[in-house]
């Protein structure tokens, strides 16, 4: 296939596919994303579930009690600090180093999980093999395991004399008690988030769409990049965001494998605990608030990216 026809395929085949396509999974089928007040009123009248007002009331109350009140308590605590004290608390070199490690390792772990989570999901959904159910159940293990147990198990494995640690040690790679250990622990706890968000979506992606792409002359790579990946992208982003957010706050598993050396392998949640240990409640919440604001903005940005990805897909 010449480059010209490839490009032509790209434009036309996708158009054709879209017209024939079932509604993409994950995208609501009937609800319009936007619309004027009339459209919204109409939708409300035709809503399947009755009692929108009641449901919204419950939603707000529930979110308020479970999420907003504890979080505002954290914010309020920091108001007992003066601005320079707050600034000093969150810009101390040790705190900055901890933020760098927490955000860096969380991001790296979430990225790795997004990539490998996709492969794992693909294998689980598309292939039938002996022990598939077992592998499927294994995915949830990091969810169910108490994080401290995960941390201790990982440390035992990756420490100098552990099974994996010994092998890596001969290559000159140290994992336990280094920032690399933090990354390993965060990767471990993040995997289920990616797989479990991708799985139902991938199960819904119609095979005939792929077959249609193939009959229209798309190569395997093209089918993957232009047909499958776009319909998976929103779910992949959600999985990535969940894994990332979970990693930011992770304490239990990391604390055992990190080594916790100030400026080197100390995570931000540990600094919060250290501050509490000095009865510095305000200082602890200051660090937490920065963590909170940063993760909220990141999640918001990822949501925006998702909306953009959906729009680009044409839903």
């Amino acid at each position, binding site marked *: 296939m010449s480059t010209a026809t490839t490009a032509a395929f790209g434009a036309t085949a996708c158009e054709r596919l879209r017209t024939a396509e079932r509604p993409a999974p994950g995208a609501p089928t009937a609800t319009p994303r936007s619309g004027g007040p009339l459209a919204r009123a109409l939708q409300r009248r035709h809503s399947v579930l009755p009692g929108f007002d009641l449901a919204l009331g419950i939603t707000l109350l529930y979110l308020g009690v479970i999420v907003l009140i504890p979080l505002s308590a954290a914010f309020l605590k920091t108001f007992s600090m003066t601005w320079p004290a707050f600034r000093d608390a969150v810009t*101390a*070199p*040790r705190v900055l180093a901890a933020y760098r490690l927490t955000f860096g390792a969380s991001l790296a772990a979430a990225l790795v999980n997004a990539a490998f989570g996709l492969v794992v999901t693909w294998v689980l959904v598309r292939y039938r093999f002996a022990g598939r159910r077992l592998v499927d159940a294994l995915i949830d293990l990091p969810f169910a395991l108490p994080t401290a147990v995960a941390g201790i198990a990982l*440390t*035992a494995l990756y*420490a*100098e*004399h*552990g099974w994996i640690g010994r092998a890596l040690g001969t290559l000159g790679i140290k994992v*336990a*008690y280094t920032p690399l250990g933090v990354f390993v622990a965060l990767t471990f706890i993040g995997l289920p988030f990616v797989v479990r968000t991708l799985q139902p979506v991938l199960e819904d992606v119609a095979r005939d769409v792929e077959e249609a792409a193939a009959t229209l002359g798309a190569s395997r790579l093209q089918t993957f990049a232009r047909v499958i990946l776009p319909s998976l992208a929103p779910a992949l982003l959600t999985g990535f965001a969940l894994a990332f957010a979970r990693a930011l706050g992770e304490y239990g598993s990391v*604390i*055992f494998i990190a*080594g*916790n*050396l*100030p*400026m080197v392998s100390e995570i931000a949640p*540990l600094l919060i*605990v*250290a*501050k*509490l*240990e*000095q*009865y*510095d409640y305000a*200082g602890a919440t200051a660090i937490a608030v920065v963590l909170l604001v940063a993760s909220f903005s990141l999640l918001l940005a990822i949501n925006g990216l998702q909306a953009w990805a959906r729009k680009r897909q044409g839903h």
Partner: protein
Amino acid sequence: MHRLSRRRGLAVALAFALAAGSVAARDVTLLNVSYDPTRELYQEVNAAFAQAWKTKTGDNVSVKASHGGSGKQARAIIDGLEADVATLALAHDIDEIAARAQLLPADWQQRLPHRSTPYTSTAIFLVRKGNPKAIRDWGDLIRPGLSVITANPKTSGGARWNYLAAYGWALRQPGGTDASARDYIAKLYRNVPVLDSGARGSTVTFAKRDIGDVLLAWENEAHLALKEFGADKFDIVYPPTSILAEPPVALIDKVADKHGTRAVAHGYLEFLYTPEAQAIAARHHYRPIDPQVAARYAAQFPKLALFTIDEAFGGWAKAQKTHFADGGVFDQIYTKH
């Protein structure tokens, strides 16, 4: 824990039912909020006290114990955990309860003998069997290439005693000054590859993960490690000098008054000073302060020169502020190079 306390509850209920026929015995529950390594100690003490109290007053007392990092436990009391008595790793933590929640008077430490410290301990070394790195004194710990295991003094009470023992040793060397001690302590912590958040955590790192040449530990914790992980693997080394660690006990007045347990709670703390409880402490490798009991168990506690925190650092408040507060000496080890 739950099952244990339920079983104990059942036992108490049964005892009560048996006694109810003849004597109107009262049923009292005490909560002792303590730190991590005292688990085994208080298990035994509580049973002994229940018996002693029963003989003395006829009342059935069941003492529940809660264990955790000393600072964390103090914070729990401040935040409302209803402890009748606190038995923590360092006086500073009880000072904070007095200062922040006003649950007991500020001069609490004067209310019981020996500055409210019924047993003491010290910081010593646990090394690999045969002491292959020939570690004998604090000065050996800063040898280049040596790996020292201790917990983070910012999060662990025991680790704070370790730190102060090392720093105090450096101060007391010929020509020792604050500058030379800071230099020493910085070198020492450069040899620390892992800072666990609690003392028990560093014991596990050293004993189970095989990390490090020497573990700085509470005396009782070192003996426990020998018992748990095998005496054939480790040796205990007593440095010639160390710190006198004083884990104090206190009645939490406001809680005890609310529960109506002041008399029994006070009786419990006084019981800790009796020869019976002192012997239990000694068996768990806490140094008894009762001279007779101490003499009886002398073989178990090698003599070493012990300095107090007041002598070397002018008390906990000052030591805490200088060394462990944010930007203090400990932080400077890692931020200034």
